[in-house]
């Protein structure tokens, strides 16, 4: 096969250029020469020129002037020119270019060419860049080729048909008969193409899926043949006979067996056979096993088979090959919600993977471990997670820390353990925790009154060791300020007491105040703590007074303001000092009305940092939603409210009634609303059509977490089956759908279907959800989409 000399010379010239500039010069000269050649009429070197242009294009330089040349070459009678022309078409043209339409006719002619290699060029190009119009034009041709006797052409036509179906869904009907007959082919290439085509057709239309269910026995037969047959040199890859075909058949079986008992039964034996017989020492065998596992878990398989599948995944976890461990963990992640117990059995191995060298494996292991935490294994899991946190790569720290906090919050066996865990995380990864950790921890400590003494001792010791982790220092300062008297008393049941004098405590706080590592927020905490101690200690009040007055001339405005106010507290309002600096009451979380009420009672602007923070973080979700609605109303566009909403609806109608003239009224309206507590879980009807009703209710679980419950009911006269819901949310919001309670809705509202959706909205974006409803009623499939823009109670 003699290579193209002009092309290779050019490549050599380009490669020998020593700088980018030189290379650009060479390429410009070559492109000029090529353009000149294109303008000339037919000469012998046309294919060389186009090939040169394609090389230049691959280096990243513009090559659009070659598009018309491609069109001309494709129309040429010479095979060499056609070959390069079609290659150019695939590289330079795509469906968005106008020139691509010009080659439709050439492709049509070449599809009926006498030589199969010319036909194959046309088929390949059509499958690569065929636009919807081209596909519509040429679909009948492709169907004809599917029925030809030449396997080489048939297999290419099959994949071309796949492309056509992807581009123009309606044309699927055209290919169904031919696809069916192709399944009886012996040639593996044709068989593979047929399976891919059938898969595509079934994906696009549920009726076709029903029709192709009858092919399950044939597919099972073909698979059996592949698995049991002896060595076939043509298709063997490391002991597995044609793994590509096996995997595609397994995937098709998955689609056919989903939600269908009969089909799933028919393939149970086969799947068991494949799972046990496939050699798992090489990657290729594991690829087939992996596909088998995915299929088993997705169809209605019997429990023994499911256990077998999860065990295969467990074996994967122990494999030396990192890729296989990674695959195993991604699969286990998908089934951890539905087959929780089965996955729990492999918890030990998963936790071991936390120590793996590879970052991708570590990330998967972390996600899976967090999903596996439960009330029974919380202590051991937390130990492992904390060890992981101390040695994990920096990009995983934030995720690990927040995961640990969530787990601790849900399953803490005792308060002391909870506090210990949080303190441990703050010492190890204090820099990576979220901002609301500090108020959350403070609230937790306040609520655990029996452990105040223990907590303050522990925090004091932590403060002495290290003041670099800001969240820890903030919490420590706050506690010392609040419970300093307990610290000074010196006795504590839970932990060994240390003799602490007032000077020691004030020294510690002063170090925090003066350290360059402390942020302004931390300094604020420390100053307020020092002030609070003035009522809790007896001897060194003067020292406190002097500290406070020094900061009266601090450059930081926030600190200065506090210091000046505390000074005033010492001088003019000394009689109120004790009352003002009293112990804090227990903070209630998630009841907006009460926190705001407490704030308005404070006579001085005593900015308790913990409470302010909590209030700040709790407040935005509510007013933000209200403000948006308000602005819409002020702007004139009245947003139609969802029918049937309870509190949210009444709140909004109150809004419309109130005068909305000046912008200043906005704040009053907001102030007026705060005291109203939210009803627990208002529901809203989001979809009502053909007797099927879908209602939505949501509950705020945490700062960014939200649980949405979707309830569906059926008031028609006939039963509904195959009811599925799919949900989509904006990017940056994480979504997890729990398994629905059922997928059948009996007539006349006999029973309801509920499905839980767990959302996590860390960036607090405006939450919208698009829900796709799909069900079968009286034999016909109904699909509908509804968008939810406002959530009740948010």
């Amino acid at each position, binding site marked *: *096969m*003699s*290579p193209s000399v002009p092309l*290779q010379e050019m*490549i050599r010239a380009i490669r020998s250029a020593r700088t980018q500039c030189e290379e650009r010069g060479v390429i410009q000269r070559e492109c000029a020469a090529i353009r000149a050649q294109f303008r000339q009429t037919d000469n012998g070197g046309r294919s060389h020129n186009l090939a040169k242009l*394609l*090389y230049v294009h691959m280096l*990243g330089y513009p090559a659009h002037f070659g598009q018309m040349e491609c069109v001309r070459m494709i129309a040429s009678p010479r*095979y*060499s020119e056609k*070959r390069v022309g079609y*290659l150019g078409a695939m590289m330079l043209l*795509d469906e968005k270019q106008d020139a691509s339409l010009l080659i439709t006719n050439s492709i049509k002619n070449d599809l009926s060419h006498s030589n199969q*290699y010319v036909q*194959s060029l046309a088929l*390949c190009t059509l*499958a*690569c*860049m065929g636009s919807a119009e081209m596909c519509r034009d040429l679909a009948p041709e492709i169907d004809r080729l599917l029925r030809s006797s030449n396997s*080489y052409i048939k*297999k*290419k036509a099959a*994949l*071309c048909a*796949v492309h056509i179906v992807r581009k123009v869904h309606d044309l699927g009907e055209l290919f169904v008969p031919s696809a069916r007959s192709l399944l009886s082919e012996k040639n*593996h*290439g044709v068989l*593979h193409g047929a399976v*891919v085509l059938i898969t595509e057709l079934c*994906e696009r239309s549920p009726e076709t899926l029903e029709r192709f269910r009858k092919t399950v026995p044939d597919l099972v037969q073909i698979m059996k043949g592949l698995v049991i047959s002896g060595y076939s040199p043509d*298709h063997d*890859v490391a002991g597995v006979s*044609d*793994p*590509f075909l096996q995997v595609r058949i397994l*995937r098709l079986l998955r*689609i056919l067996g989903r939600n269908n008992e009969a089909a799933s039964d028919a393939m149970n034996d086969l799947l068991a056979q494949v799972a046990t017989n496939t050699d798992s020492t090489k*990657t*290729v065998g594991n*690829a087939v096993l992996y596909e088998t596992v*995915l299929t088993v878990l997705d169809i209605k398989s019997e429990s023994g088979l499911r256990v077998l599948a999860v065990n295969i995944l467990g074996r994967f976890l122990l494999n030396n090959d*990192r*890729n296989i461990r*990674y695959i195993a963990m991604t699969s286990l992640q998908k089934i951890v919600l539905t087959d929780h117990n089965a996955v729990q059995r492999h918890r030990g191995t998963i936790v071991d993977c936390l120590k793996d*060298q*590879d*970052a*991708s494996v570590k*990330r998967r292991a972390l996600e899976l471990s967090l999903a596996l935490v439960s009330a029974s294994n919380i202590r051991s899991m937390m130990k492992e997670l904390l060890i992981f946190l101390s040695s994990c790569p920096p*990009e995983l720290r934030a995720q690990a820390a927040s995961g640990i906090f969530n787990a601790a919050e849900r399953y803490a066996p005792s308060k002391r353990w909870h506090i210990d865990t949080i303190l441990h995380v703050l010492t190890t990864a204090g820099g990576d925790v979220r901002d609301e950790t500090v108020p959350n921890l403070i609230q937790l400590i306040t609520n655990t009154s029996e452990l105040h003494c223990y907590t303050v001792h522990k925090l004091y010791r932590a403060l002495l060791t290290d003041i670099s982790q800001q969240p820890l220092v903030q919490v420590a300062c706050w506690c010392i300020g609040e419970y300093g008297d307990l610290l000074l008393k010196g006795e504590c049941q839970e932990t060994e007491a240390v003799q602490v004098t007032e000077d020691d405590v004030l020294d510690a706080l002063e170090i925090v105040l003066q350290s360059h590592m402390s942020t302004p927020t931390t300094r604020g905490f420390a100053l307020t703590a020092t002030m609070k101690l003035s009522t809790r200690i007896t001897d060194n009040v003067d020292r406190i007074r002097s500290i406070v007055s020094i900061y009266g001339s601090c450059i930081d405005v926030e600190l200065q303001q506090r210091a000046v106010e505390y000074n005033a507290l010492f001088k003019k309002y000394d009689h109120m000092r004790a009352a003002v600096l009293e112990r804090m009451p227990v903070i209630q979380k998630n009841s907006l009305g009460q926190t705001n009420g407490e704030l308005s009672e404070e006579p001085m602007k005593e900015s308790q940092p913990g409470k302010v923070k909590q209030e700040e973080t709790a407040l935005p979700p509510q007013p933000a939603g209200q403000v948006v609605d308000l602005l819409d109303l002020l702007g004139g566009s009245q947003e139609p409210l969802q029918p049937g909403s309870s509190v949210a609806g009444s709140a909004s109608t109150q809004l419309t009634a109130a005068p909305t003239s000046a912008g200043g009224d906005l704040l009053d309206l907001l102030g007026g609303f705060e005291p109203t507590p939210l009803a627990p879980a208002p529901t809203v009807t989001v979809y009502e059509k053909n007797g099927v009703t879908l209602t939505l209710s949501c509950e705020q679980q945490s700062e960014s977490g939200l649980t949405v419950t979707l309830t569906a009911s059926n008031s028609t006269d006939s039963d509904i089956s195959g009811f*599925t*819901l*799919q*949900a*989509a*949310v904006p*990017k*940056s919001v994480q979504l997890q*759908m729990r398994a629905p309670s059922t997928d059948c809705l009996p007539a006349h509202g006999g029973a309801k279907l509920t499905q839980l959706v767990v959302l996590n909205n860390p960036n607090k974006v405006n939450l919208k959800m698009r829900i*796709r409803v799909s069900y079968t009623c009286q034999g016909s499939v109904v699909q509908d989409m509804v968008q939810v823009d406002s959530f009740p109670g948010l």
Partner: protein
Amino acid sequence: MAKSLQSCFFNQVIDRVQQQVEESQFYFTLAPRENSVKELRFLLLFSRQGKLRLQKWFVPTSDRERKKVIRDMIMLVLPRQPRTCNFLRWKDLKIVYKRYASLYFCAGLEEQDNELLALEVLHRYVELLDKYFGNVCELDIIFNFEKAYFILDEFLMGGEVLETSKFAVNVSMEQADTLQETMEEYMSKPAY
């Protein structure tokens, strides 16, 4: 751009981009039952210096998007340590890559594709190149890039595997080349 500048900031930029691209979430997550079978999105070959040797796109992509994807892939794959996992996540795609001598083979898969099988696809392509060129090396692919594309077109089409037998692919390539030569001789023009 001066090469010294690049080398100064290269590592920091790599770390940052790698972190960002690996942590990217889905744009739109549909519920777990969305299981439509899709294809390979693209196949790229690039050298250790980041020079592109082959690009095959199985979905329509604009020039700008292509350049961006190529840049991102090179940034993601090149800094990877030798014995790490061959699978990555990037936006909503799975990326499978394998290094053969001085070339990186990088494929972008849809969510539902089988990564282990994709590794096999890459390996099969390398075997086909090897059989055709005889102990293939990067230079073969540079100087005969159009042949590499022709072989790829006999093996994959529309993102799916076209022919599962090694021998069949090689036979078709030989016959097509023979056709080209004989037609040239017949038309008595210099051989391609």
